């Protein structure tokens, strides 16, 4: 199986995600520059965090028009697992692959802090190895990370809330830390699982972030046999 990590001009967590997938999990993973138009052969795609195009105009809005996004939309329709982390989440929202919006934090400040998040949907490719209501310690680092959506009740009904904060750092609506599309294959989350994937980097000696990537791995392995 092959996993692709998209690099937009200004992405800055691409190598961090790569490190986790390649050096910790030993997966077949490649870094893909945003001008690539053909993504055939990839079994999963990750849009990493950072400041694509320097967050100009609005976080994620310019990257959403990158050439690579056309193929990502096709993959999304083909139910290929796609994860957007932080700025990647913002891009997926701006590209219309996920509902809602990410607006300026209530504090109007950037916030970099370790948080506890709760699993609300464990049927996505990125959470199916987790228990419902399981708590994960994963840090956030964002300035436009406050989730908002008009149709929140419908989203809840359809199980589109994937993670909630236990201690909401951004003022996100209904404590939402991550959401998915109606098919559950496209997931966006503000916390950075790649930063919580080795015990040495965690103040709590934890590697909960790894569980998200492990979920993806076992999902892809399972699917191969179906």
């Amino acid at each position, binding site marked *: 199986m092959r996993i692709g990590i998209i690099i937009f001009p200004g992405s800055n967590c691409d190598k961090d995600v790569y490190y986790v997938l390649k050096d910790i999990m030993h997966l077949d993973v490649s870094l893909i520059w945003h001008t690539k138009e053909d993504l055939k052969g990839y079994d999963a795609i990750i849009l990493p965090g950072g400041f694509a195009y*320097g967050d100009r105009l609005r976080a994620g809005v310019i990257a959403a028009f990158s050439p690579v996004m056309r193929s990502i939309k096709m993959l999304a329709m083909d139910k290929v697992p796609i994860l957007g982390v932080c700025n990647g989440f913002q891009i997926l929202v701006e590209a219309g692959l996920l509902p809602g919006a990410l607006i300026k934090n209530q504090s109007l400040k950037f916030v970099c802090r370790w948080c506890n998040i709760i699993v609300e949907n464990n049927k996505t490719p990125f959470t199916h190895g987790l228990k419902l209501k399981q708590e994960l310690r994963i840090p956030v680092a964002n300035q436009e990370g406050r989730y908002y959506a008009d149709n929140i009740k419908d989203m809840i009904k359809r199980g589109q809330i994937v993670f909630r904060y236990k201690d909401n750092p951004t003022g996100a609506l209904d404590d939402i830390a991550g959401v998915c599309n109606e098919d559950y294959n496209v997931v966006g989350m503000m916390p950075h699982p790649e930063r919580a994937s080795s015990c040495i980097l965690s103040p709590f000696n934890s590697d909960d972030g790894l569980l998200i990537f492990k979920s993806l791995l076992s999902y892809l392995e399972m699917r191969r046999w179906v």
Partner: protein
Amino acid sequence: MGLSNEELAYLEKSLGRKASNVELSMVSAQWSEHCSYKSSKKYIKTLPKRGKYVLEGNYDTTMLDVGGGYVLTIHIESHNHPSAVEPYGGAATGVGGVVRDILSSGAKPIALLNALRFSDMRDAHAKWLFKNVVRGIADYGNCIGIPTVGGEVEFDTSFTGYCLVDVSCIGLCKRSELLKNRIDEGDYVILAGGSTGKDGIHGASFASKALISDDRSAVQIPDPFMEKLIIDATLEAIKHGYIKSMKDLGGGGLACALSETADKFGKGIDVMLDKVYLREEMSAEEIIISESQERMLYIIDKNSLEGFVSILKKYEIPYAIIGIVREHKNLKIYYDGIIADIPASLVANAPLINRKARARIVINDTLKPSEPENIKDIILQLLEDPTIASKRWIYEQYDHEVGLRTVIKPGLRDASILRLYEGKFLAVKLDGNSKHCYLDPYHGSQGCFSEACRNIVSVGAEPIGMIDHLQFGNPENEYTYQAFIDAINGIADYSRIMDIPCVGGKVSFYNESKHGEIKPSPVIGVIGLLDNVNRASIKDNDRIIITGITKDELGGSEYYEYIHNISAGNVPKVDIQLDKMLFPTIQKIVNSGLVNYVHDCSKGGLAIAISEMCILNDIGAEVDIKSIKNECNRLDDILFSESHSRFVIAVSNNNLPKVKELLSSLPYSIIGRFYDKDTVSFDDINIGLEEARYAYDSITRVMDHG
């Protein structure tokens, strides 16, 4: 312009003719104090530069061999004048400058730190500066994806109407990928990055005199996105071996970058100034000294040109070939005909100035505050003192995690710890103490150095190098100049005896506003290596040990200054011989896992050190004051003295005998224990952990709700 009559005469004598306007612009930018170090060079040379880890060879910057095939470099820069005028842009471009500095050495920037100084937070202007400087650093550093992992902040009324913004960057690079650092006849000189505009005209000269007017045109405009593209493109080009040499455009703009590059390699450059892409209409003089940000100068040979340019194109970075390397050793500048033809070495090497210095009358009157009635209130007030209080409000605005290196995050220990590679870590800390340095520049600056080392040692690391940023007022003032010399001597003496070389530094003069000169403000950074990170925390019933002797030396202490508004007395003096024996012992104690926590005792004294340990570990403590080894006559002196060589150590009863044995030849005392209660007690003075925590979080309250 900025040249003195003597300098102008020297220039014309060297040239054998009158200088052209463009030549004058270049020379006055490059001979400014900011670029030339003409008042400080003589003294900086006295700092020891060689050491066990320092790479021998002809490198632009000091490179340290940190093993595993890696070399490390660290820089520090300030952006004081610009930040005082326009705090957001000034601080942000300060970050950009130091990052490009690291990049120019061929290393990958892996971490940022900063040291900031403002006036009293009750001053609305100081608060405005503080808020926007932090936001500027955050927005820039976060956007370029380099973690800001630590820092240091001090508040003092000598910074009224002004501020100090020092930014430090650490670079790491594979030894095998070090730049060739040679240039040859026919090589291309490429300017890449942002366009050249009128921002930052005369920036170097602006920073080389007192800040009297708010000269906004001298402040540069930040573009972190362009910086990020430059970082990524440059690192990619380094991997391919395309770059022979490079230099960032900072103070003095093209004039500085071109002359220093040519002079360093003993070559000349033919410059086609009309090739420089502009943001707006500009004269030749303006182009040559503009300090527009996010620009780099690369020297590329013919064979690498295509590959290098394809990388710039991939990242959509504007560029132009603006010159060719020549053997003639001059800067020949063409712009509708030749407009300058001047030896690069003449531009790059300003005549040094021998300045007069005069020792100030020492302010060490023995005036002491009357003994306070309510010590508890004072402890709470000191915890609230923004110089001491938690810096959470600041570091939470910085992405300190990106890059997956930050093992010990800001605010948790005395130093931040970064993972360099598997099994090797770097501890890093900046320290400064303008209050001590004002009263006694020699012992004050030595104290900053010792304190920075203690912070490194307390996490178990071995100090391997020091950087200094020496910030003073007007060097033409004889007293100020003497303070500068004293500070250098203090640092050099400590460096020599401790065998910790100076691996980078910077001098900044003319830090004065219409409110007067700042206090002498050297900022010292120390880096240390370690193989393992001890993450233990304080446990119930751990005993408290303090090393060193607590002395009656409260001059410049937070207790005198913040509580009593007294700026006088004897400042703490470092016992260097004691440090030399003590540091390896503490390192050994931490690395052997015998202790659960070590904390440096400095600003605010022992009462604050213990309170901080309790707040961070969520535990109580009881201290028996009479068991503290001291040379004081008063209770407040014991609790608030800032004597050096003191570590506060938490150790279990089981390990106590072994630790005592290791410390046997050194001064120490066992002064109490930590316990699972929510009070911190010094004899019968009891402070609730909750009220201590509340006081300690004062900055967040003042900035967000005040």
